[in-house]
């Protein structure tokens, strides 16, 4: 999968940002925070998981997603997200 496929989607970037910020979340909560509907969120998550950036664990009917810390690309993106938030926060004085 090309990097453009990941970063060209505002929804996918938003999901990555949420996961880097919160750590791990279930689909409904990711959808709520990202302002997306359930099925769109689900599709984005499938793409991100296929790219090896995130992984999930199933507890009964609940799927919980998080960054795949074993993947170097995932770690780099997570670091970028954190750095970005930090820098933006400093600039806006938050």
């Amino acid at each position: 999968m090309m990097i453009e496929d990941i970063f060209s989607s505002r929804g996918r970037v938003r999901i990555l940002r949420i996961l880097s910020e919160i750590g791990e979340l279930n689909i409904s909560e990711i959808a709520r925070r990202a302002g997306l509907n359930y099925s769109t969120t689900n599709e984005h998550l499938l793409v991100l998981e296929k790219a090896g950036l995130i992984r999930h664990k199933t507890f009964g009917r609940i799927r919980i997603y998080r960054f795949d810390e074993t993947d170097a690309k995932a770690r780099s993106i997570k670091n970028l997200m954190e750095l970005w938030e930090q820098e933006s926060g400093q600039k806006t004085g938050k």
Partner: protein
Amino acid sequence: MPHPSVFKDETKLDINYTPPKLQHRSFQLQLLNQYFRHSVEAPGEMTQRVIVTGKVGTGKTVLAQHFGRGITHEAQQRNINLHYVHVNCRQNKGSFFLMLQRIVTRFHPTFPKRGYSAEELLQTLMQILDDQKAYLIVTLDELEALIQNEGSEPLYKLSRTEETRERAPRRLSLICILREPSWLNKLDASTRSTLQGNLIQLDSYSKAELEDILNDRLRLAFKPGNVAPETVTLVAELGEEEGGNARYSIELLWRAGKYADTENVRDVLPEHVRKAAGSVYASVRREEIAILDLHRKLLLLGISRRFQQTGGAHLSMGEAEESYRIACEEFNKKPRGHTQLWKYLRALASLGIIKTELSTAGQRGKTTLIGLPHIAAADLERELIRILQPTVRGYSR
């Protein structure tokens, strides 16, 4: 200029604070450690259930928390992934679901709050423990609330869940805390049989034990020398009266410190304890004082004034008599004799307005010692004068 606070660190008197050393519960702590020895020596081999009972303020919660801290520390040193979670059933509205959720969020803080049943949540918990190769000791504090709300089911499921997992490591152990073991009779026979066996009964603390606990805490919470020994003695006495209740005693000591701070003084005195006790429980009501006959009121007036002069925790019978005679003179009344006064004292004690006890070591002979545990002496004097003023002629103050 305001005086600095009497406190060094008042958080050490907080209800949720677990002290580094557990006073007068070392045997029970050792017993708990013995029951759960397998958790650190042979994790996964077996599961354990222990019941801890005792009245309010007898150290049940602190015992379990202390144990939890110790055993997780030991497990960490042995590279065993052992967790201790303390859940209060009452705070969780006696809901099995909410309690399980509380436990699961210890492992997954953002775990969704809705969309599954308690049974699914229990399965989730076991799955998490398996995934993380973790072992868990859960304390269910104030278990009465869970039994009252949901009956036998939760305990049955918790204690039997391991049995349905054949050949899997044993991961979940339980400590159940409740005041009265009789609550277990409300459970069905099979649940009861899985729980009963290891029972640790905590007796009420004695006055001397409460003093040890208080002295321990005051060293952590107050600046050195700010709390007089007789202040501690009085707090311990009141704590013993409240059923050997350490929690009440510690809170009372804290409140007394607050009164001292409010008055901007350096020392926490018995009078502050009386004020604090008065603010916690309104044991002495105005009506009770108003209906006393004249000489009982005068005796109380003398006692209240004497306490304010001495600032001590107790008065002797002789001191009370002397102050009573002065009060009689002031109100132009002929004082009653010693035997009559002694009867008055007994009556006042039975009403709970004062407390009497026989003197022990350190005093010549035996005398009746009088305490004023529930009301501040100054408040009592004010109330008595308010009542006596219109009824007694010749009052000239």
